[in-house]
Every structure is written in structure tokens, then in C-alpha cells.
């Protein structure tokens, strides 16, 4: 509802009881649902603004504390140095690879905003025990991830302020705003190509990477 109409609702309310109830109905639409306070929402209100760090909690954690926690709770999947165990995601490296044939998109090479790491780790890592880390633990393990990516020294301590001011290497690597449609094809109907069909890629069958049609028992 606009400020104008809310203002006029107030006028109506002043004019009499009936008008007041009409205004109340307008203000609360269908009147379905229940009021809730910020204090009540707090346990769910965990989102952090990636750009401005809005929502980052008080607390802090050191690279050293993060290393301990990482070895215990993260390294089994992400590798001792964030290199990724087997096919589990890697969390470091890849700088300079984004333009190459095999881009490696990691925290260090790709993520544009540091507070996003805090948000993600606190909401969903470790994978098998999400939302089990407290704020200090999250700061610590994020500090260690940044250290693994050469973005924090070994003796650093991370808090809301230092996380928000840390500039990620790929901060300017994103283009917001959708440039599509970026390909303008024409619906040619007749003789659109000449000569025999040129097959560019014909490996689908021989690659053998397609699962069979039998369902998994």
C-alpha cells in the first residue's frame, strides 16, 4: 500500500468506527497470517549480504583455530589444502584459469564477495552437519579458507569488519544484467545449407558415459 493510501486510511479511521474497520481491512489485506517479531525470527534470519556484509554477527576467529577445525570437519571432502579430495569440490587455486580451456572456479579464483563465504559455510557446511558451526567457528574456518587462497596471512584474525573490507581477486569478474537475447538467428526455410551434412561431433555412443536404460534395482 502506498503512503498516500495509508494516509487516507488514517483519515477514514478518524471519521468513525465503520470507516476505521474498513481501513484496517485495507491495511492487512485478507487478514490472514500472524505478526512476528525480529527477535522471534532471529534463528532463521541467517542471511548475510554478500556485498556489504549486512547481517554478519559479532565474534571472530583466527586462521590457526580455523585450520584445526578445517582438518577435523572439512578436509575429508575438500582435501588437506582445499585441493578437493577426489571429486569433492576444491576450495582453492584456479587463479588465471577463467579464460582458459579448463576454468577452475574456486573461492580464490571466482567468488566476488568474501562475506558470501561466511553465509554459505554457516548455512550449509559441513555437508553432513549443516548449521552446526557457531559464529566464532565460522569466522575461523572462513579465515583459514582465505588463508589457503593467499588472501589472509597465517596470523590473521577475522571478524565482521575485516571480512567486509577484504577485496576478492575476482570482484570485478561479473556482469550483472542479462544481455540476452545475444544471438539473433533467422528462421531460414529452404536451401539454408549446401552440400552434405557436416558432422562436427559424433562421439556420444562410443564415449560410453551414458547410463543404461535399466532402472537401478
Amino acid at each position, binding site marked *: 500500500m502506498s503512503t498516500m493510501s495509508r494516509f487516507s486510511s488514517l483519515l477514514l479511521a478518524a471519521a468513525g468506527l465503520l470507516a476505521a474497520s474498513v481501513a484496517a481491512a485495507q491495511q492487512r489485506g*485478507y487478514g490472514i497470517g500472524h505478526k512476528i517479531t525480529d527477535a522471534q525470527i532471529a534463528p532463521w534470519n541467517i542471511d548475510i549480504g554478500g556485498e556489504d556484509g549486512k547481517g554478519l554477527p559479532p565474534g571472530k576467529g583466527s586462521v590457526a583455530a580455523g585450520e584445526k577445525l578445517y582438518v577435523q570437519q572439512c578436509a575429508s571432502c575438500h582435501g588437506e589444502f582445499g585441493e578437493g579430495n*577426489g571429486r*569433492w569440490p576444491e576450495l582453492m587455486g584456479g587463479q588465471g584459469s577463467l579464460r582458459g580451456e579448463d576454468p577452475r572456479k574456486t573461492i580464490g579464483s571466482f567468488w*566476488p*564477495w568474501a562475506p558470501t563465504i561466511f553465509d554459505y559455510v554457516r548455512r550449509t557446511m559441513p555437508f553432513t552437519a549443516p548449521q552446526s558451526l557457531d559464529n566464532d567457528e565460522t569466522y575461523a574456518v572462513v579465515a583459514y579458507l582465505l588463508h589457503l587462497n593467499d588472501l589472509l596471512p597465517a596470523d590473521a584474525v577475522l571478524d565482521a569488519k575485516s571480512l567486509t573490507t577484504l577485496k576478492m581477486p575476482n570482484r570485478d*569478474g561479473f556482469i*550483472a544484467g*542479462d544481455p540476452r537475447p545475444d544471438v539473433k538467428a533467422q528462421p531460414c526455410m529452404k536451401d539454408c545449407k549446401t552440400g552434405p551434412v557436416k558432422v562436427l561431433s559424433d562421439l*556420444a555412443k562410443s564415449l560410453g558415459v551414458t547410463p543404461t*536404460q535399466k532402472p537401478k534395482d
Partner: protein
Amino acid sequence: MNTGRRGFFGRSLAAGGIAALAAQHPKIAAASGGLDGKPLEVPDWTKMLGPGVTAAPYGAPSEFEKDVVRRNVPWLTVSEQASINFTPLQDLDGIITPSGLCFERHHGGVPAIEPDLHRLVIHGMVRQPLIFTMSDLVRFPSVSRIHFLECPANGGMEWKGAQMAGVQFSHGMVHCCEWTGVRLSTLLEEAGVAPAAKWLLAEGADAAAMTRSIPLDKALDDVIVAYSQNGERIRPEQGYPLRLIVPGWEGNVQVKWLRRLKLGERPWQHREETSKYTDLMPDGKARQFTFVQEANSVITAPCPEKPLKAKGFCEIRGIAWSGRGKISRVDVSLDGGANWQTAELQTPVLDKCLTRFRLPSRWQGGPVFLQSRAIDETGYVQPTIEQLRQVRGVNSVYHKNSIHTWRVNQDGSVDNVQVL
């Protein structure tokens, strides 16, 4: 029918043995079924009673359709909880995907949510933060719409070349269902959005606590907070009891297990809109917030899973869809894109919805290069893979909607190929 079998049938029913009854399901007596010149036989199932109305309180497909299932690609992801499976498009007709066959994409597995305990919170830049129970939400004016829903990584395994020998895997990250729920705009009005709010964050209640930022313009336009899918409550793997339906936009923003909507001034820049679901271009920059699923189409019959079995008449069938609106035309080529014929569209053609197309044809036994090309009501024409690659290279992962080619071989088998 011999009396011994009837006797057994009766006993197992008396014992309430549904499983035993299923095991006794009669098989066809004569395998040739009248195709060998001999007189037809009357099969067992015509000569005995079948199960009654209490046998299957919730029906399931025929036992003979057991191969019509979602399938995953084990090498694609290391974990089955942060993974994807694929809709068996080769086995489906029409435009509605049966709920149990809709592809699944989760980042933290499927939560088992008790609907009585589920809550939706709307807060942030609103006049009055509100919390809703499921029964609150069902009380609001409702709306039902049929929309496709596609993962932006659909086809993403084939940017560099044809790889998957089947339409289930080349195109199966799409489904189309009727969704019922309350308009998001209705809920936002209830909470009163502050004039300065421009975006909202949608968050799931799953182990990934999935979050995506959505522009307010779209939220107020046609987004639904849905509780039903194809007439019944949403399936657990599709977001039970509550999910967002964001018509025409990439699947990831249609947050499942929806628990929270927060209004704000700018996007949150969370992991799924920076590290993932961004399109890396050849210059090393990544496009962000590329929400819409551009027009796409694929032939589902024939396809690698459904080879041609006989020469002669053959109806070429497929599906087309566009996140920008209605499909206005689909053309089919039999010669790899040199010449095209316009296919028939099954009506009604709906907005941001799968559209079934078909073209009657004859197969003479020679190799054929089948393609389909969708055009939507904005005039957008589905491009070739080469046209896409020229602009976007091969590393963008997402939003590959190019014209697809099936080569029908001499023996009727069908291969996934890419042609110039």
C-alpha cells in the same frame, strides 16, 4: 482357467495378501498374440477377476512400465544429495509430466517436512513481518497455472560436443506441471512492501538452506507460492509442502521447501548466484542473474532410446518451450538444417509451458538428420550450437538451448550428433 489357480487366488485374497496377489498376476498365454496366423487365444486376464478397489488406495503405474523412471548420471556429481536426475522424456506424451517423473535437483537431499510445523516468514523491508502456517496459505485466493520448469544446466554437458546417447540425459532437466498456490504478490501486499525494496531473498528449509535473490518486479508479476502440483500436494522431492514457482525462469530460483522471504534493496550475492548459476564467457567474465530460460525444443520420437523399428509412416514428435512466453512455431528439418517444414502444434498453446509438436513423415530407411527449431511469441528463434558458441564460447555451463540433432542411421538406431 483351472480351478486350482482360482482356488489359490481366493485364498490369498482371504489372507489379505496383496503382494501374493500381484505375484499371481496372469501372464499372456500365447506370446505371438495372433501375429502368427493362428487363431487368437483368450488370455488369462480375461478369464479371472482382477484386484478390487481396495487393492491400490494410491495407484501406481502398470508393473510393465517399470523402466519408465528418472535416472541419474553417477559420474556427474560425487554426492547423491547434491545431485540431479533426469525426466524420461522419451517415454512421455502430451505436455504434463507425471509428478513422480519430474527431474530432481537438490543441494542437500530431500527434507522430510511435517506440514503442520512448516512456516513461511515474510520480513525485511516490509511494514509488518508475518508468519504463515500451511492452512493460512491455503485460505488465500488461489491460482492454478501450467508451467515448464527447467534447470539452466539442461544440455550443459554438450557445450563442447555431443556426449549423451539419449534424450533423457541431453534434455531431461525439464518438466511441466500444473501448480496451484497463492500469488506471491498477494502475500507481499499482506506484509506491505517498503517502497525502497527492490529484491527479495527466497530461502528453503532443506539442509542446503537454499537461497536465491529475485527482483521484486518479477515477484509481483507472476510468481506463485505453490502447495499443489498436478492436483495433489507437492511431492517431497519437488518442495513439499511449499515452493516458489517463478514462471519461465531457471529452476534454481524456484526455491523448494520455501520457509522465508526477505525483502531488501539489492541482491544478496549468495553462493548460488556467484559461484554457481553464472555463465562464464570467453573473456573470463561471468554473466550474473541470467534468469530467463530462452526458447528450446527437442524431438522425443524418434530418439536414441526410441529407435525407428519400421520403414514407412512415422510421426516425428517433440516438445518446445520458452521462458519468454508462448511458442509460436516449431520447424523440423530432416536434412540437418538445410530445409525446414513447419510442424503442427498441439493446442492449447500456453504461456511458459511445454508445447507438443508433431510432423507426419515417412522413413525410407536411409540416414536422416533430424532437427527441431522453436520460435516464440517474441520472435526469438532457437539458435544453432555454432551460433551460441560464437558469442558464449564453451565454458558457460548454463543456458545451452541450441537446435539439437539426431542422426537416424540405416538400421533405425538414433545417435546424438552435432552438425555444422
